């Protein structure tokens, strides 16, 4: 199988610091075309793009968001690019921004024109210092070349918080407050940054926009799965020969991505489990990999497309140990706003610690299941709602990994 590149079309071909390089490969033509269109017609084009669905994880319709912000009456509107790529195992946005920052800025400027926003923000996570550098240079070049039109670009940077990747949390953080989520509705398209209508899209989504505008929604709709057209970028990590970032059409099969693009697992080993979509997504067993990677097929398979992270694990791993690591991650990242998440993630980590330290029992696994149902139903935001997903999925698929710790003492110390 081969890659199909849209968002990564210029990666490795142009100098990311050079605006002329980007223009030489057709850059900012989409923006020019967009600005010759009526904003309503432009939004319709994005809606028609086989319903371009967001690439950040939730798969929400991009055109619907733009339409929402467009039709909400307000004198001030904003565009925010979510470059707070904190999901473990995900490094596609970093790859896009480090190889082609202008395509993202072009997508943002097209959106700003469509909804009538005078200010656009790129919120880049604090860890991505190189991306911030490149984006600030790119925004300055756009300004000097007179390409920004009516919209001012602001490149701002986070300070180390996973939950800020959630869009309402990101807006709160952008406003200079603790990273805590807000109640939806109102959705950001009605009341977002500073309470004004705001479109929040992911880096990968914005990167696809210039090409869709330039080549048209009909062209885009012919690529990949017809219900979820276009491409998706996957980040392969774990026990795989060729780790890295791959962009494929959405009718690709998960197994082909792992075996053909990733080269399969190390010689002499075999796949035990695959975690798709990030830390809160369930595991798949090797026999479940013949699934198409579009949003709906993944969901039907009991997994999730999520951010596009693919963690491949071979038979050397103990799923109980990895579950404890996942639990600790969420306990560390819970913002503390709501009790079910703050206490629930803490208890998940504590119970799995007990399990790994000679105090494991079947009752504890039941307790984890109960916690999951409470947290899914009562946590304020997706962090808590999904924190126990992967753990319970591991318990379902690999009960023996948990049972073997019943009454056993763990020898190794951990950090």
């Amino acid at each position, binding site marked *: 199988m081969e890659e199909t590149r849209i968002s990564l079309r210029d990666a490795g071909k142009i100098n990311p610091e050079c605006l002329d390089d980007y223009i030489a490969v057709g850059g900012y033509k989409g923006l020019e075309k967009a600005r010759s269109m009526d904003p309503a017609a432009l939004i319709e084009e994005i809606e028609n793009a086989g319903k371009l669905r967001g690439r950040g994880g939730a798969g929400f319709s991009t055109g619907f968001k733009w339409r929402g912000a467009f039709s909400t009456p307000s004198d001030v509107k904003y565009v925010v690019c979510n470059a707070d*790529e*904190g*999901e*473990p*195992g*995900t*490094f596609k*946005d*970093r790859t896009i921004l480090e190889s082609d920052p202008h395509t993202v800025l072009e997508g943002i400027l097209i959106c700003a024109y469509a909804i009538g926003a005078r200010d656009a923000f790129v919120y880049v*996570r*604090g*860890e*991505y210092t190189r991306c911030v550098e490149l984006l600030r240079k790119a925004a300055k070049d756009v300004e000097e070349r007179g390409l920004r039109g009516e919209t001012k670009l*602001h*490149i*701002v*940077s*986070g*300070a*180390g*918080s*996973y939950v800020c990747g959630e869009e309402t949390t990101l807006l709160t*953080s*952008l406003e*200079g*407050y*603790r*990273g805590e989520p807000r109640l939806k509705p109102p959705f950001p398209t009605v009341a977002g940054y500073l309470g004004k209508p705001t479109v929040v899209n992911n880096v990968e989504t914005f990167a696809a926009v210039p090409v869709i505008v330039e080549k048209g929604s009909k062209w885009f709709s012919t690529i990949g799965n017809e219900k979820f057209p276009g491409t998706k970028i996957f*980040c*392969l*990590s*774990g*026990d795989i020969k060729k*780790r*890295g*970032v791959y962009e494929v059409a959405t009718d690709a099969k998960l197994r082909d991505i792992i075996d053909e693009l990733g080269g399969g697992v190390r010689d002499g080993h075999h796949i035990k489990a695959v*975690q798709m979509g990030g*830390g809160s997504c369930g595991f798949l067993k090797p026999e479940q990999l013949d699934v198409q990677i579009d949003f709906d097929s993944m969901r039907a398979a009991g997994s999730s497309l999520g951010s596009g*992270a693919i*963690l491949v*694990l071979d038979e050397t*791993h103990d799923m109980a*140990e*990895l579950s404890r*690591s*996942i639990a*600790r*991650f969420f306990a*560390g990242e819970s*913002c503390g706003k709501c009790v079910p998440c703050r206490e629930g993630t803490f208890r998940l980590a504590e119970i799995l610690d007990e399990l790994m330290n000679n105090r494991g029992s079947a009752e504890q696994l039941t307790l984890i299941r109960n916690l999951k149902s409470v947290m899914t139903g009562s946590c304020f935001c997706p962090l808590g709602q999904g924190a126990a997903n*992967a753990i319970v999925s591991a318990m379902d698929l690999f009960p023996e990994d948990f049972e073997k710790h019943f009454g056993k003492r763990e020898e*190794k*110390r*951990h*950090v």
Partner: protein
Amino acid sequence: MKNIETLMAELGGSGCLLDVLKAVQAERGYLSDDDLRAVAAAFGREANSVYETASFYGMLSLAPEKKNVLEFCGSVNCEAAGRRDVAEAAEREIAGSPLWEIKRCECQGRCDTAPNVVLNGTAYPSMTPEKIRALIRKAGV
């Protein structure tokens, strides 16, 4: 040392509090109560509100840091790639040294080179126990 107004002007008026706090921290090493009061005044906010923000984020420090700060990513990807062996080797190497601090950091978005560590703000890929020992010795225990 630059004052807050100069640092804010250098940021080109992006106006985002986190960027300003990070710039102040880069200049001073950490964020003192006086720094937070000054930033709060510049933003027209109460000092306690800025403190609330500053105390939330992992990359902001409200007290002087040790000379060497070694950070391990807390994600399952680094765990699966052998972070624990690396972390244990690091702990043994720096045992009792007053110059070192080990803490957890966010995923560095470099899972293709896991396990990753961050030493004093710089990310180091594909860590092994041998490599981390060499890195620590080079920085000095």
